[in-house]
C-alpha cells in the first residue's frame, strides 16, 4: 500500500519530470479550453443566456486535465455539480457543453440537463450530478463492470472535499478496496463546500490519509500542478488497468470564482486567500514551464491561445444558433421501451 508520504514524494518527483512536447502542449491546450469556456459561460450567465445554475471550474483545470489525459473514450467518468471541466477533458466538445448550458437541443444532454447534468456516454462521460457523492459509488460500479467483463477499462470519480464526509465515500472506497476494483477516486479539495470551510466539517482535512483506512493507496498532490496530477493519475490508472485495484488521489486546489455564478465570492473567505491562489493559477504557471523547458516558444503558445479563442467563439455561436428542444419530446426516454 502506498503511503501518503510516498504520494507526496511523487508530487516532488512530478514537478521534476519532463513530459514530452506533444503531451505538454495537449495539457496546456486542454486547460486553456476549460478556462476560456468557463469564462465564456460566466459571461453568458451574466448576459442571461444560462437559465439555471452555473458552477465554474476556474482554478481547478489542472485536475481534470491531468487525469483525463490518461483516459480512453471507453473509460467511464462520473462527476459532480462542478463538472464542465471533466466533460471537456473527457472529450465532450465545447459546442455541446455551451449548448447544454443554454438549454439547446444540441447540448450534450439535449437541453435536459444544464450545468449539473452533462451526459455524453459515447465518449465515456457518464454524467455530472446535482447531488453530491453518488459519482463515487457509480465509478465503483463501473470498476465492477469492467472487472467482471475482463477489460482493462477504468472508472473515475471526481468529487469535492464536500463529498468526503458523506457516507458514499466510506461505502464506495471500502467496496472498491475489498474487491480490488479498477476505480480512481479523485478528490478535488478546494477547501470549501459552498461557503462551509472543510475545516469546520471535519477534524481531518487530510483526505489522502483516509485511504489507508480502507486499504487502498492514497496520494496527495498539488492540484494546481498539472504535471503532478498527470503523474499521479498515470500511476494509479496503470495500476488499475493492470488489476492492481483502486487509488485515491487528493488534489489540493482552489476555485477562484464564487461557488456558482451569481453568488458572492468572499465573506466566508478572505480576498487575500483568493488572491494568493490566483497567483498560483495552474495555467500561466504551466505555460511558463513549457516555455522555460524549451518545449514550445511563446509564439507557439500564443498560437494555441488563438486556436482556443476561436474554438470558444465557435462554440458560443453554435449554441446561439441551435434550436430549442421540442416540448413534444419531453416524455421521451423515461423508459427503455419508450413508454
Amino acid at each position, binding site marked *: 500500500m502506498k503511503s501518503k508520504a510516498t504520494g507526496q514524494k511523487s508530487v516532488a518527483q512530478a514537478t521534476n519530470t519532463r513530459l514530452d512536447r506533444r503531451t505538454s502542449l495537449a495539457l496546456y491546450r486542454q486547460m486553456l479550453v476549460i478556462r476560456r469556456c468557463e469564462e465564456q459561460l460566466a459571461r453568458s450567465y451574466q448576459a442571461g443566456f444560462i*437559465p*439555471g*445554475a452555473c458552477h465554474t471550474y476556474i482554478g481547478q483545470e489542472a485536475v481534470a486535465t491531468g487525469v483525463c489525459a490518461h483516459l480512453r473514450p471507453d473509460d467511464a467518468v462520473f462527476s459532480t455539480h462542478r463538472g464542465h471541466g471533466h466533460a471537456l477533458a473527457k472529450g465532450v466538445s465545447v459546442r455541446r457543453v455551451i449548448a447544454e448550458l443554454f*438549454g*439547446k*437541443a444540441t*447540448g450534450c*444532454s439535449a*437541453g*435536459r*440537463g*444544464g450545468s*449539473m*447534468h452533462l451526459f455524453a456516454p459515447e465518449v465515456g462521460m457518464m454524467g455530472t*450530478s*446535482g*447531488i*453530491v*457523492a453518488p459519482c463515487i459509488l457509480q465509478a465503483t460500479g463501473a470498476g465492477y463492470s469492467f472487472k467482471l467483463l475482463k477489460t482493462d477499462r477504468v472508472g473515475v470519480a471526481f468529487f469535492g472535499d*464536500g*463529498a468526503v*464526509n*458523506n*457516507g458514499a465515500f466510506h461505502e464506495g472506497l471500502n467496496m472498491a478496496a475489498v474487491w480490488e476494483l479498477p476505480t480512481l477516486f479523485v478528490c478535488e479539495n478546494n477547501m470549501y*463546500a*459552498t*461557503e*462551509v470551510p472543510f475545516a*469546520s*466539517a*471535519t477534524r481531518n482535512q487530510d483526505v489522502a490519509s483516509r485511504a489507508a483506512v480502507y486499504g487502498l493507496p492514497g496520494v496527495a498532490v498539488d492540484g494546481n500542478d498539472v504535471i503532478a496530477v498527470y503523474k499521479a493519475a498515470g500511476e494509479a490508472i496503470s495500476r488499475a488497468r493492470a488489476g492492481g485495484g483502486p487509488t485515491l488521489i487528493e488534489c489540493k486546489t482552489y476555485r477562484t470564482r464564487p461557488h456558482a455564478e451569481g453568488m458572492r465570492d468572499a*465573506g*466566508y473567505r478572505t480576498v487575500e486567500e483568493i488572491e494568493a491562489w490566483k497567483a498560483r493559477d495552474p495555467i500561466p504557471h504551466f505555460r511558463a514551464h513549457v516555455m522555460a523547458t524549451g518545449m514550445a516558444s511563446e509564439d507557439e503558445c500564443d498560437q494555441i491561445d488563438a486556436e482556443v479563442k476561436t474554438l470558444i467563439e465557435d462554440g458560443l455561436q453554435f449554441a446561439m444558433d441551435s434550436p*430549442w*428542444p*421540442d*416540448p*413534444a*419530446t*419531453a*416524455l421521451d426516454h*423515461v423508459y427503455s421501451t419508450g413508454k
Partner: protein
Amino acid sequence: MRELTFTAAAHEGLAEEMASDPTIFVVGEGIGRRGGNFNTTTGLYDLYGPERLRDTPICERGFVGLCVGAAMTGTRPVVDFMFIDFILDAMGELINQAAKMQYMSSGRLKMPLVLRGCIGVGGASATHHSGSYASIFVHLPGFRVVIPTTPYDAKGLLKTSIRSDDPVLFLEHKSLLNTKGPVPEGEYTVPFGQASVCRQGTDVTVVAIALMVKKTLEVCEQLVQEGISVEVIDPRTVAPLDIDTIIESVHKTGRLLIVDETFAPCAIGAEVAAQVMDRAFDDLDAPVRRLNGVQTPVPYSAPLEAAVVPQPPAIAQAIRDVVAE
C-alpha cells in the same frame, strides 16, 4: 396590515420560536453565518451561535439521524435541507426511525422534528433540484406534511410545525418564496388539518397544491367571464388532510378537479379523488379529475420544463372540461 414575503414571514416564525425555546436548533449546509441558501436563517447565527445554527458536513443521512436522536432526548431540531431533494439519502432515518419512535415506545418518546426545504419545478433547476415528494410522506404513517402557499400561512404553520411533537415536513415552493402578503404583527399560529377556501365559487371545486394554488387563482377571473364560478381550496396541510372542507365544497359544486404539479400516480390527487368518491359519490355530477405534472424527470431547458407542469391555460382548460361534463 404589513406585507412580508413568504421567506421573511417564515423567517419571523422561526426567529420567534427560537427566541422563546432554547431547545430549538437548526442544522443544514450554510445555515450558520451564511444565513441559508434561501435566507431561511439570516441573522440568527449572530444571536444564537453555532450550537443552535449548525453548519453540517454534506451528510444528509447523518444529520437527519442525529436529529432523530436529538429529538428523542429533549431538544427540537429543525433540518433545513435547502432543496428537499436532498432528503432522499435520509429516507431510512425518517421512514424507519423518526416516524416510528412514538409508536414503538407507546408514546413515551416524542419526535419534535421539522424537515424543511424547497420544492417545485421552476427556474431551470433541473432534475436534482425540482422535487417535491409530499405524497410519499402522506402515504406513510407518522408524518405531518405542510405545504403553505401564503406568507401568513408560512409563518403560522412553521410555528405550529416547530411546536409539534411529530415529525413534520415543511415544504416551501421555490416560486412562492418572493411572493408578498399580509402578515399581522402579533403572535399567531395556523393549525394543522384546516384547509383554506381561497376563493368561493359555485360551479366547480379546485383543490390545488403549492404553486398551483396561485396558478389556479390566476385563471379564475377569466373563467368568471366565461360564466364559470370556481371554488379554490388550498389544503395547506396534506397530512392531516382536511377532507371535510373539500367534501363540503363538492356538495355545493358537484365537480372537483385536483391540480398538483407533481406526478399523478399514487399522489395527493388520487387520494382526494378516492376519498371524495368514497364519501360523496352521490354529490358528484362528473368524475373527479386530476391535472398533474407529466410522468418524467424534470428537464432543464425552458420549453421542456414548461411542458412538464400544468400551466395556467391547461388549468383553465381542465376546469372548463370538468364543468362541461
